[in-house]
């Protein structure tokens, strides 16, 4: 069995002594939003049916609502918003600007996804290299070893690991649509039956997928490391990673349980740290505002050439937000980066330990030669 405490201590040491990893941690925190340990993000409300004041939805009422919406929409883009001195054509142009913003964000999303997997590869390899040779790499070298086909493999592995969640969403969507049509078209009894069936099916599906996702995310740590450290392909990484975790399920399970506990501690610590660092964040917000002010004003000037009223300010704000927020909340992003680097280091060290285990088994006892 591996020694989790030894691994945790070593990862802690690596986190503070190997600062080049922080750069990749920052990218991971920005791109992945803290790759592990997220809880559920539901709002926490309990089901309560309203006391019958809902509008009964029928195909006719939906059609009517759609026509009404179209009418209002057309009116808005012909007349504009006279109260705010915004003409219809200006509003149309603003819609194009929002479209451009969505396109830019899509491109930024792709760039961040690439950066995320390059950083994942870099952190895994840098920690492994440090453990093997004791040498620390520079950020540039880290990028060089991260920028490889392995990053693409990590992406594919992650996609496979997230397949159950994608399937779940599809199942829920289909079930929802079926329930909707059964309620508005079928008899009351059939509608009740379909709703109850959908609730039961939804509950079981969500539960099973949640458990499956937790297990797959645990295994992903090994899949990724086989791919990054052994240079294996996607299928081979999945096979070898699974076999490794299965063979050492006690060590892996223990490490996993400890990491979950650590995740809880981290959540509490992060809340405290976030509250404590609010004054620092206020300072960084001012600094971010100063940094973003010039490009913001330039964008306002640009948008003013074809937009009127307050629309240029909103459009410029949209485009400058991706620059402003990471800078403004830099201390919190740094917290996320530490968490990402620490978690990755722990699993890399676990992988190394587990891999070394067969070599550490004591050799068979040699029988003394008969005299």
């Amino acid at each position: 069995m591996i020694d989790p405490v030894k691994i945790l201590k070593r990862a802690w040491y690596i986190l503070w002594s190997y600062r080049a990893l922080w750069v990749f941690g920052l990218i991971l925190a920005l791109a992945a939003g803290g790759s592990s340990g997220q809880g559920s993000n539901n709002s926490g409300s309990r089901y309560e049916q309203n006391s019958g004041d809902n509008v009964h939805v029928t195909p006719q009422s939906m059609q009517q609502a759609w026509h009404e919406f179209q009418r209002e929409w057309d009116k808005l883009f012909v007349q504009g918003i006279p109260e705010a001195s915004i003409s219809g054509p200006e509003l149309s142009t603003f819609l194009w600007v929002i479209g451009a913003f969505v396109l830019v964000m899509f491109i930024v999303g792709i760039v961040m996804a690439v950066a995320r997997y390059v950083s994942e590869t870099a952190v895994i390899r840098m920690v492994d290299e440090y453990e093997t040779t004791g040498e620390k790499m520079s950020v540039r070298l880290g990028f060089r070893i991260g920028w490889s086909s392995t990053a693409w493999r990590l992406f594919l592995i992650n996609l496979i690991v997230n397949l159950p969640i994608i399937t779940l969403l599809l199942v829920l969507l289909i079930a929802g649509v079926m329930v909707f049509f059964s309620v508005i078209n079928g008899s009351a009894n059939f509608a009740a039956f379909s709703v109850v069936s959908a609730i039961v099916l939804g509950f079981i599906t969500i539960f099973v997928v949640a458990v499956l996702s937790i297990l797959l995310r645990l295994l992903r740590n090994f899949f990724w490391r086989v791919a990054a450290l052994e240079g294996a392909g996607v299928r081979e990484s999945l096979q070898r990673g699974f076999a490794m975790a299965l063979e050492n399920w006690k060590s892996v399970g223990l490490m996993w349980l400890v990491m979950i506990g650590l995740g809880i501690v981290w959540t509490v610590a992060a809340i405290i740290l976030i509250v404590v660092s609010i004054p620092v964040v206020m300072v960084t917000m001012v600094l971010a505002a100063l940094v973003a002010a010039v490009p913001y004003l330039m964008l306002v000037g640009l948008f003013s050439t074809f937009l009127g009223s307050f629309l240029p300010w909103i459009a410029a704000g949209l485009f400058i937000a991706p620059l402003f927020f990471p800078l403004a909340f830099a201390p919190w992003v740094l917290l996320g980066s530490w968490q990402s680097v620490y978690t990755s280091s722990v699993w890399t060290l676990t992988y190394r330990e587990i891999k070394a285990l067969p070599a550490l088994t004591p050799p068979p006892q040699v029988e003394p030669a008969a005299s």
Partner: protein
Amino acid sequence: MSKHVSEWLNAYYDGELHGHRLQAVEEHLAECESCQAELESLHGLSDLLHEVRTPELVSPERFVSNVNLRLPHKQTVASQNKVLEFGWWMIPVGLLAVWVFVNTAFIVSNILTTASSLGVLSGMSDWLATGPASNVYLSTTVGQMGVLDGNGLSLAETLETFTRMSLPQVSLQISIAVLYLSWLAVWWARRMRREHGQLFEG
């Protein structure tokens, strides 16, 4: 007799000689007993070396781990009650399962609430209703007492509704987290005790 070929015997033994040199050494060996004896001793030495197991070079890290493994350890006492041991490890797993179950229940609940608010379930029979929609008893009482009114009362009602809806989930999550951390703390303490025991015995 030609000159002794001692300096070529190693190469001859390893099969590295060719042509003229090989012929010369073979011819000399055919008639020189001293060189034959030397060749024989080379045979013997080689056999001896083959019999000796060559040590494998290990990295310092593995060497340290090997030494640790060979150090005297307290023999793991076979658990007399395996059921208890199994139960011990099932505690965190069970807590996680409960956590997933609770969150699933809340997710389904949220979906139902959303569907209900969208009017999808409005045609359903009343058995889906879980009770009165308004659970703002405290705020209503406070309002009836005249302590709050207007905006203050509506704010209190919103706050009470939110608290009533969020409190069960938050308290459940916190309870599970506390239980999990307690298990982890006990595991840690057991581990430390075991380590200290080994240290003292060592």
